[in-house]
């Protein structure tokens, strides 16, 4: 009898000890991701999710963030500002995440950034490029690790300045991103080349985001007197545009063409050999742009796991998780306020190279690359050759120009 009692006691004690151990192990660090996971731009969300998962698995394998496991939660913004805000509120209030990352659309980012002040939760933007969120709408909680419109267009203008084209027009999406791209292009190119001419607003081609037939816009550009075209279309819009423009003889060599987001692997995988050769294309990250060990390890691991080459969106998500982990290590905490001090002024080596998050406006100073589309028989998609690399300092406007007043 006493034996059985002792056995029972032992079982209870062991059980208790194990629960105690369970309690002692800390809860995981929760990261909430908000991307476009459905609709015509869903493939961008897919790549970002893969990049995030890769980073989190690597970190967990190496012992987690400050000894705590990392857990990811994904929400769909559908590319709409109200849905994006709702998704972030849900992540913060219901799932109690420690940090929010992601955002593809500039429209969503502009609406979300001011809300972060009220949610008192750090947000790391990885794709949306509107200058406002690290400019006029900058705030304590909003950061961006990816290139913004100013930085990308500064590179476009540098390349355009060396081209023969005199008169420029644009094909872009008819919302803030397209208009801001065109506005900054005029500003930066005029500074480099004062005699550059730009078609007036009524003669350029801004297409609604839902456009699938671009023929009217293509005809309009082909019949204009412009000999240079800045294309800021992206995603499905860019794929449709390139295919239809190709059919209509748009790439006949009579005009110089710059595609600000043409080197998105999402687009290149869809177009394959339908992407014309010899076109200057931009991106926020290109997987062949540098051969640092960090980049090689990232590209190899990504390709091995997902069987595609990482896009800039995959890199953005990967880089945000890595930056957050670095900030947490620096401050030895994941406290929302302390993390902000960790992110401010953080310098970290990512696959894209060294980035530094400016403490004044929370924009990352990161190197950029543009390249000419070319064929490589060993690659399933167009590659960039030659490439033109730009140092982050060269292409990032000074804080004074951003209009940011940090609260």
């Amino acid at each position, binding site marked *: 009898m006493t034996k059985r009692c002792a056995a029972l006691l032992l079982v209870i004690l062991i059980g208790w000890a194990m629960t105690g151990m369970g309690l002692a192990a800390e809860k995981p660090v929760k990261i909430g991701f908000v991307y476009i996971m*459905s609709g015509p731009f*869903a493939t961008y969300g897919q790549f970002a999710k893969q990049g995030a998962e890769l980073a989190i698995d690597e970190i967990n394998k190496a012992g987690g963030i400050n000894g705590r496991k990392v857990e990811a939660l994904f929400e769909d913004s559908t590319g709409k500002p109200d849905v994006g805000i709702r998704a972030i509120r849900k992540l913060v209030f219901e799932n109690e995440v420690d940090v929010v990352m992601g955002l593809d659309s500039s429209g969503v980012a502009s609406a979300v950034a001011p809300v972060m002040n009220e949610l008192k939760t750090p947000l790391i933007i990885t794709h949306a490029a509107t200058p406002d969120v690290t400019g006029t709408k900058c705030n304590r909680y909003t950061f961006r690790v990816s290139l913004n419109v100013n930085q990308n267009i500064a590179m476009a203008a540098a390349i355009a300045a060396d081209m023969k084209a005199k008169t420029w027009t644009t094909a872009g999406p008819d919302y803030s991103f397209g208009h801001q791209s065109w506005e900054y292009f005029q500003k930066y190119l005029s500074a480099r080349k004062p005699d550059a001419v730009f078609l007036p607003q*009524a003669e350029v081609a801004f297409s*609604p985001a839902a456009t699938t037939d671009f*023929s*009217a*816009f293509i005809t309009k550009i082909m019949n204009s007197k412009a000999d240079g075209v800045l294309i800021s279309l992206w995603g499905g819009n860019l794929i449709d545009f390139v295919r239809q423009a190709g*059919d209509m*003889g748009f790439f006949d060599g009579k005009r110089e063409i710059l595609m600000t987001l043409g080197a998105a692997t*999402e687009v290149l995988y869809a177009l394959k050999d339908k992407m014309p050769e010899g076109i200057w294309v931009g991106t926020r990250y290109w997987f062949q742009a540098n051969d640092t060990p960090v980049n090689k390890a990232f590209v190899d691991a990504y390709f091995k796991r997902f069987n595609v080459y990482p896009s800039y969106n995959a890199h953005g998500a990967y880089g945000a998780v890595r930056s957050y982990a670095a900030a947490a290590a620096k401050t030895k905490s994941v406290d929302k306020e302390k993390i902000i001090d960790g992110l401010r002024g953080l310098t970290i080596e990512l696959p894209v190279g060294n980035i530094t998050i400016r403490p004044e406006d929370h924009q990352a100073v990161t190197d950029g690359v543009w390249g000419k589309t070319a064929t490589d028989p060993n690659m399933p998609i167009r590659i960039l050759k030659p490439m033109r690399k730009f140092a982050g300092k060269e292409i990032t406007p000074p804080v004074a120009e951003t209009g940011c007043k940090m609260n």
Partner: protein
Amino acid sequence: MEGFLANVLNGLSWGMLLFLISVGLTTVFGVMGVLNFAHGSLFMLGAYLCMQFVRWVGSFWVGLLAGPPLVAALSILLERFLLRPLYGRDVSFQLLLTFGVMLFLDDGVRLIWGPAYHVVNPPALLSGVIPFFSQSYPVYRLFLVILGPLVGLGLWAFFSFTRWGKILRAAAMDRQMAEIVGVRVPVLFTAVFAFGAWLAALGGALAAPHQSVGPAMGERIIIESFIVVVIGGMGSFPGAFAGALILGLMNSFGTTFVPHLQMALPYILLAVILLTRPRGLFGGEA
């Protein structure tokens, strides 16, 4: 002149695609009184199936011929098991149901084929360009411009001269009377719904080579199709043709001449039509 003609062709080719989608929508509405929100998803399914056939057998024509009947078969199941129990009820039930089917199909497509964009090449016969003044124009677009009126003519002949066409029109005009004279209306409804789905899928298969195939591609076209149907007159066949032409041309010329208004033009036209001719351009008293 060159720009003008290019705009006409651009407008016509887009208009003809719109026509194929809206004519199915308007027929289903005209005969059955059902506003099918899932019509755009059937369009999308047509494009995906065409792409799948191109992958399997490498021929666009097989996809064009084999894809749409499969979509029609699926829609028979939809009509028979989902829509039919709702005929006696309020219209809002049908709207909710077809909206649900749309969400279901959109996500289903994403589960099967993934979220990425896909590209379908036009068949070799239609993939070139023809010289067009100092520029060139894609043959595939001309093919669309010609095909639209042919399909329209075929449908018109079917409705005007065949027994089935006449029965359809009779049932649309007065369902009860048609039943009394011995028309089996339930079978007829199933056939009409499948026919509308076939047209949507045909439009999708034809759209596949000239735009990217991706999830939610149906959402983009269904809104314009609804505008076409309302402008032309709900249930009107020539109305769909006229509405699609107007919208197509307005799209191409609007882009060139009034770029700031281009996005709003279809809605302005819609408002004007609803105010001045609420039944649409060709809407009768029926």
